[in-house]
C-alpha cells in the first residue's frame, strides 16, 4: 500500500514479541536503583531529617535530602507555568506524597528498605483541602516560600466580553444555571513514570532514558534546571507505555536521579510505583464551575456565562501555553452559534498534588465541553425540548466557516448538523425514545445522552502559543538515502499513537514510495530536530504538517536533480507517484530511487543545488485545527441500587483527512473508554486531613473490558483548509466529547425522579443519592 489507508502498524511486531524497550527495561552496566521517601502529611513543617541509619545500610550508595540539593541550587525547580516546585522539600511539605528524600542503592529492594530507615520529624500544619475555602480569610498560606505571598491565589483570567454577555443575559427569555464539578482525575498510564540517568564524568555528557512525551522540551528544561550545557544532554524516550499528558512534565525524582548519577558516578534508575504515580504526578481537571446559559423561549441560545475555581494543587505545574493559564477553556461556547460569552477562571493553591492539565484534555477543553453540553441539556429540560432538536437549532451551519466564536477562536471547517444527524440515525434515536417510554412504564430506566463537541488541537502558532517561552512549532527532517529508502526524523514522541506508521504513510503519500521504505526516527534528542512534543493532539496537525512539507521539499529537489539527470527543463517534468516524468513522454523519466542515487552520485547538478536528497521543515501552524463530533450514549440505570450500565455508544467523528483510519479509530476507542471511566468511576478524592484516597488501583478505578460496550463508530471527513494534508488531529477528541454523553444519558434516565444534575463520577452511591435529592460532593471524602 502506498500512502493513506489501513496499514497494519510497523511497531507491532516488536511489542507482540515482548521486545519493546520501555524505561524500566533499560539496563546499564553498574546501574543503581533508587526510591523516594514521601511525605505522609498534606501540610507540615519539616523539623529534622536523619538519614544516618539509611546511609549505614550496606547496599545504600547515597541518600539525598533537600539540604544536599541546596548546595547545588537544585532544591527548587521551575514549573511549566512560571511557578516553582520543590525537588526535595526543605522547609515544608505541601501535599501528601511530596518528595522528601532520595535513596540510591545497589538494587531496587534495598532502596525501598532504606526508606524505612530515614527518620523525619514533622510538625503538622492545618491543610487547605477544599478548593472552595482556599481564598477564605485566615486560610493557611501554602506558598509562604514565595516572597510576600499571603494567600493561596494563583491567577485570575478571563475571556470574552463581560458587558455584552450581561446585556444578552438581561434580555434573554430563559436563563438556566448550574454548579458543576469536573473532579480531579488522573491519566494513570499503565507504565508509570521513570528515568535512567547516566552521567559520564569524563566527557560530561548526561544521557537520560525517560518516559517523556516531549524529549526536546525535557532536554532544554534539564539544561536550564541542572546547569548542564544543553548540547551535553541527550534525552532518549524509548517505548512509552501510555502518556495521556502524565508524561509531559519533569518530575522532582528525575532531577534527583541526575544528581544521584553525578554523586555516585554510576547510572541511576528511578521508576515510580503505582501509588507514587497516582498520588504525586500530574493529575487532571479539578474545575469547580458555575455555568449559565441564556436563550429565547423558542430555544435559540444567546449567551454563556461561566465562573471557574481551578484547583492547581500545591505548586502551579500545569502545562499551558503561557498566554492561557486556563488553557483553551474559553472554547467553552462549544459548537453553537451564540452572541456573547464570558468566562472567568481563578486558580488557587491547595495542599494536593501539583499539576493541572493532563489526561487527554486538549488544554482544558474537556472541562469546557462538558460544561456547555450539560448546560445545553439542562436548557432542553427547562424548555421541554428534545435535546437533539435544541442542538439542531443552535449548531454552527457549514456555511458559517471559518467561524469566529464569541471568545475569539476561529473554527476552520465542519458540517455539524450532518454529524449529529448521522449519530442519531446510527443509534436509531426515534426508536430508542419509544423504547425508553415503554420501559418507564415497566419501571426500567433507559437513558439516552447526546453530546456534541468541538476540539481545538495542534498548537501553535508560536506567536500565540508557547510553553515557558518555547514556541509551539515542530521540526521534521527527511533524508532519502542513495538506494531510495528514506529516514524521517521527527520531534514528537509516540506513546502508542503509532507514529512509526502514520508518519511513514505521510512520506509515502508525498513521495510515492512504500511506507516500509521509510524509517521514522523519534524519541532521541541527539537524532531528531527540536520540537515541543506529543500532547494536545498535536502530532499530526503540527509534525504531520512538517513531515508533509519536508517531503514536498524533497520532491521539489528531486525534480531539479531529475532535470539534470534527464537533461530536460524542470518545468517539463510532471510528478506521478514515485517518479518525475517528462511531460508528454511518460516513458522518459526518473524514479525517486534513480534520482536518489543520482543525488549521491556524480551527476552534474545545477548551480546552487547541493547534492543528496533531503528536505526539512519547522512547521509553525497558522491556526489550530478544529475536529468535532457527535456522540450518543445509551445507558440503563437501576434506581434501586444506583448502578449504571452503558448499553451502547455511538461516536461520529470528523477529524479531517484520516491518514490511517484504523489508527484513528483506535484513538477514538481509547478516548471513549476514558469517558466511561471519568463519568462513572474515576476519582481522586481527599479527606479533611488532605490524605489522598485514590492512591492505588484498588481505589482509583479505571474501566475494564466489561464496563465498556462495543463502540459504534461513524465518520465524516471535512478537510482542514489550512493543514497541508487536510488532517486535524484526533487523539483527545473522544476523551473530551464522551463524558457529557454518559452523564447526559444518566440524567435522562433519572428524569422521572426529578434529577437535574449530579457530579461525576456517577457511582452507584452517587446515582442513588441524586435520586434521593441529596447529591454527593465527590471531591471530598464520603462521611
Amino acid at each position, binding site marked *: 500500500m502506498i500512502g493513506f489507508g489501513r496499514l497494519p502498524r510497523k511497531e507491532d511486531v516488536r511489542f507482540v514479541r515482548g521486545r519493546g524497550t520501555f524505561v524500566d527495561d533499560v539496563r546499564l552496566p553498574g546501574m543503581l536503583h533508587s526510591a523516594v521517601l514521601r511525605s505522609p502529611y498534606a501540610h507540615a513543617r519539616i523539623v529534622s531529617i536523619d538519614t544516618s541509619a539509611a546511609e549505614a545500610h550496606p547496599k545504600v550508595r547515597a541518600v539525598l535530602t533537600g539540604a544536599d540539593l541546596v548546595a547545588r541550587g537544585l532544591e527548587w525547580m521551575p514549573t511549566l507555568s512560571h511557578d516553582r516546585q520543590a525537588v526535595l522539600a526543605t522547609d515544608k511539605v505541601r501535599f501528601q506524597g511530596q518528595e522528601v528524600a532520595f535513596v540510591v542503592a545497589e538494587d531496587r*529492594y534495598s532502596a525501598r528498605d532504606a526508606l524505612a530507615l530515614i527518620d523525619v520529624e514533622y510538625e503538622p500544619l492545618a491543610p487547605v483541602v477544599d478548593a472552595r475555602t482556599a481564598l477564605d480569610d485566615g486560610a493557611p498560606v501554602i506558598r509562604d516560600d514565595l516572597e510576600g505571598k499571603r494567600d493561596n491565589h494563583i491567577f485570575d483570567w478571563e475571556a470574552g466580553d463581560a458587558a455584552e454577555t450581561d446585556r444578552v443575559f438581561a434580555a434573554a427569555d430563559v436563563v438556566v444555571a448550574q454548579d458543576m464539578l469536573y473532579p480531579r482525575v488522573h491519566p494513570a498510564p499503565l507504565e508509570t513514570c521513570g528515568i535512567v540517568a547516566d552521567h559520564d564524568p569524563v566527557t560530561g555528557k548526561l544521557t537520560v532514558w525517560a518516559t517523556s512525551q516531549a524529549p526536546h522540551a525535557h532536554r532544554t528544561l534539564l539544561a536550564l534546571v541542572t546547569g548542564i550545557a544543553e548540547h551535553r544532554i541527550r534525552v532518549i524516550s524509548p517505548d512509552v507505555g501510555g502518556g495521556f499528558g502524565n508524561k509531559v512534565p519533569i518530575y522532582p525524582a528525575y532531577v534527583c536521579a541526575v544528581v544521584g548519577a553525578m554523586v555516585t558516578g554510576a547510572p541511576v534508575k528511578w521508576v515510580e510505583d503505582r501509588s507514587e504515580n497516582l498520588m504525586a504526578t500530574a493529575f487532571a481537571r479539578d474545575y469547580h464551575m458555575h455555568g449559565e446559559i441564556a436563550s429565547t423561549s423558542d430555544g435559540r441560545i444567546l449567551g454563556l456565562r461561566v465562573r471557574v475555581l481551578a484547583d492547581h494543587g500545591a505548586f502551579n505545574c500545569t502545562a499551558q501555553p503561557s498566554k492561557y493559564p486556563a488553557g483553551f477553556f474559553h472554547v467553552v461556547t462549544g459548537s453553537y452559534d451564540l452572541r456573547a460569552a464570558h468566562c472567568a477562571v481563578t486558580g488557587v493553591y491547595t495542599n494536593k498534588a501539583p499539576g493541572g492539565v493532563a489526561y487527554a484534555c486538549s488544554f482544558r477543553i474537556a472541562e469546557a465541553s462538558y460544561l456547555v453540553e450539560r448546560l445545553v441539556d439542562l436548557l432542553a429540560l427547562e424548555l421541554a425540548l428534545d435535546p437533539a432538536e435544541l442542538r439542531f437549532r443552535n449548531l454552527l451551519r457549514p456555511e458559517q466557516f471559518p467561524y469566529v466564536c464569541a471568545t475569539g477562536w476561529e473554527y476552520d471547517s465542519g458540517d455539524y448538523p450532518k454529524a449529529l444527524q448521522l449519530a442519531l440515525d446510527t443509534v436509531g434515536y426515534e426508536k430508542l425514545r419509544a423504547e425508553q417510554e415503554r420501559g418507564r412504564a415497566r419501571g426500567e430506566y433507559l437513558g439516552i445522552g447526546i453530546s456534541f463537541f468541538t476540539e481545538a488541537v495542534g498548537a501553535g502558532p508560536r506567536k500565540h502559543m508557547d510553553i515557558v517561552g518555547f514556541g509551539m512549532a515542530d521540526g521534521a527532517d527527511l533524508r532519502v538515502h542513495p538506494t531510495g529508502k528514506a529516514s524521517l526524523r521527527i520531534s514528537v514522541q509516540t506513546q502508542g499513537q503509532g507514529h512509526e506508521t502514520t508518519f511513514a504513510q505521510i512520506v509515502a503519500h508525498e513521495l510515492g514510495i512504500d511506507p516500509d521504505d521509510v524509517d521514522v526516527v523519534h524519541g532521541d534528542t541527539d537524532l531528531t530536530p527540536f520540537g515541543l512534543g506529543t500532547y494536545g493532539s498535536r502530532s499530526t496537525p503540527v509534525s504531520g504538517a512538517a513531515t508533509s512539507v519536508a517531503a514536498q521539499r524533497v520532491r521539489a529537489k528531486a525534480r531539479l536533480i531529475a532535470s539534470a539527470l534527464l537533461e530536460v527543463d524542470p518545468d517539463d517534468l510532471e510528478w506521478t507517484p514515485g517518479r518525475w516524468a517528462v511531460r508528454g513522454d511518460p516513458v522518459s523519466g526518473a524514479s525517486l530511487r534513480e534520482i536518489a542515487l543520482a543525488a549521491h552520485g556524480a551527476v552534474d547538478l545545477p548551480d546552487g543545488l547541493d547534492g543528496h536528497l533531503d528536505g526539512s521543515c519547522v512547521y509553525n501552524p497558522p491556526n489550530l485545527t478544529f475536529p468535532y463530533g457527535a456522540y450518543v450514549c445509551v445507558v440503563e440505570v437501576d434506581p434501586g441500587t444506583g448502578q449504571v450500565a452503558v448499553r451502547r455508544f455511538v461516536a461520529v467523528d470528523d477529524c479531517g483527512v484520516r491518514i490511517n483510519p484504523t489508527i484513528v479509530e483506535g484513538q477514538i476507542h481509547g478516548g471513549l473508554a476514558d469517558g466511561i471511566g471519568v463519568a462513572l468511576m474515576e476519582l481522586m478524592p481527599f479527606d479533611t486531613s488532605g490524605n489522598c484516597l485514590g492512591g492505588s488501583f484498588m481505589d482509583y478505578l479505571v474501566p475494564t473490558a466489561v*464496563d465498556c460496550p462495543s463502540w459504534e463508530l461513524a465518520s465524516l471527513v471535512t478537510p482542514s483548509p489550512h493543514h497541508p494534508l487536510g488532517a486535524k488531529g484526533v487523539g483527545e477528541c473522544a476523551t473530551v466529547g464522551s463524558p457529557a454523553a454518559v452523564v447526559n444519558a444518566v440524567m435522562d434516565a433519572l428524569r422521572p425522579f426529578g434529577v437535574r444534575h449530579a457530579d461525576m463520577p456517577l457511582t452507584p452511591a452517587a446515582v*442513588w443519592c441524586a435520586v434521593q435529592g441529596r447529591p454527593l460532593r465527590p471531591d471530598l471524602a464520603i462521611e
Partner: protein
Amino acid sequence: MQVPAAFQYRKATTVEHALTLLAEYGPDSMIVAGGHSLLPMMKLRLAHPEALVDINDLDELAGVRVDGDWLAVGAMTRHAELLASAEAGRLFPILHDAERVIADPIVRNRGTVGGSLCQADPSEDLSAVFAALRAVLVIRGPSGTRSVAARDFFVGPYQTVVAPGELLAEIRVPLRSSVSAYVKVDRRAGDWAVGAAGAVLVVEGDVITEAGIGLTALGAPGFVAAEAEAFLAGGSPSEERLVEAGRIASRLCRPAADQRGPVEYKRHLAGELVTRALRRAMERI
C-alpha cells in the same frame, strides 16, 4: 514497584509439616496460599510476617467433593476451581453467583477459598456466603482438629478464631435441598463490594424452614442478618415477607461510610439486596 520486606520462607509438604513449621517459626509466621490478599499487604508494608509457610503444595487441602452429608471444600481450593465445580453450583448456586463476581478470572486462578476466609476482610464475599450457608470450618492445629461454625469464625475485621500455629483446612457445607443466590453491587467489575447479600432458603411446601442471609461490606455482625433470618423462618416466602426481611436487615446493619458510599446508601442497599437475593433464590425453586 512496591516490594515486601525480607522474610523467611518454607514450603510445607503436608499439613503436619505446615503445623510443625508454624510452631518452629512462632507467632510472627503466617500461612501463604494464593497470596492475593497477603502479598499486596506485605508490599504496602501493612503486613510484616517474619516467616511464610507456603501450603500451595498441599493437595490434601485442595478440591471440592461431596463427603457423606457434606459438601467439602478444601481450604487450598482456588476460586476458579470452586467456580468450575458443577456439583457445587448445582447444590448451592450461591457459590457460583459469588465466585463469578470475586475479583477477576486471573486472580481467581490463584486466590484460594481458605485464604479469602482467613483474610476476614469485611468486604470479602465468601465470608457472607459461607455464613449464610451455615458452613462449618475445620481448623487443624498442634493439638488436633476442631470445627467452628462459619458464623463464629469471624472475630472482627481481619480477625478470625484461627490461632497462631493453626490453619484452616476445610469448609464443610451441610447438604440439604435448598435454593440460594448472591447479589452484589460494585463500582466496577472486580472491585470490592459496595454491598452484597446472599440468601439460602430451605422451603417445604409454602413454609420457609431455614433461612440464611449473609451480608458483605454492610456492617452485619458475623456477616449475617440474624433477625431477618429469624423473621423468615417458619413463614411463607411471600413477596411482602421478602421485602420485610430486607427492611429488618437494613434496620439492624451498621455499615460504615467510605468512598463506596455513605451510611444512608449502604443501609438502603442492605435492604434492597437482601430482598433481591431472596427473590432470586425463590426463582430457583
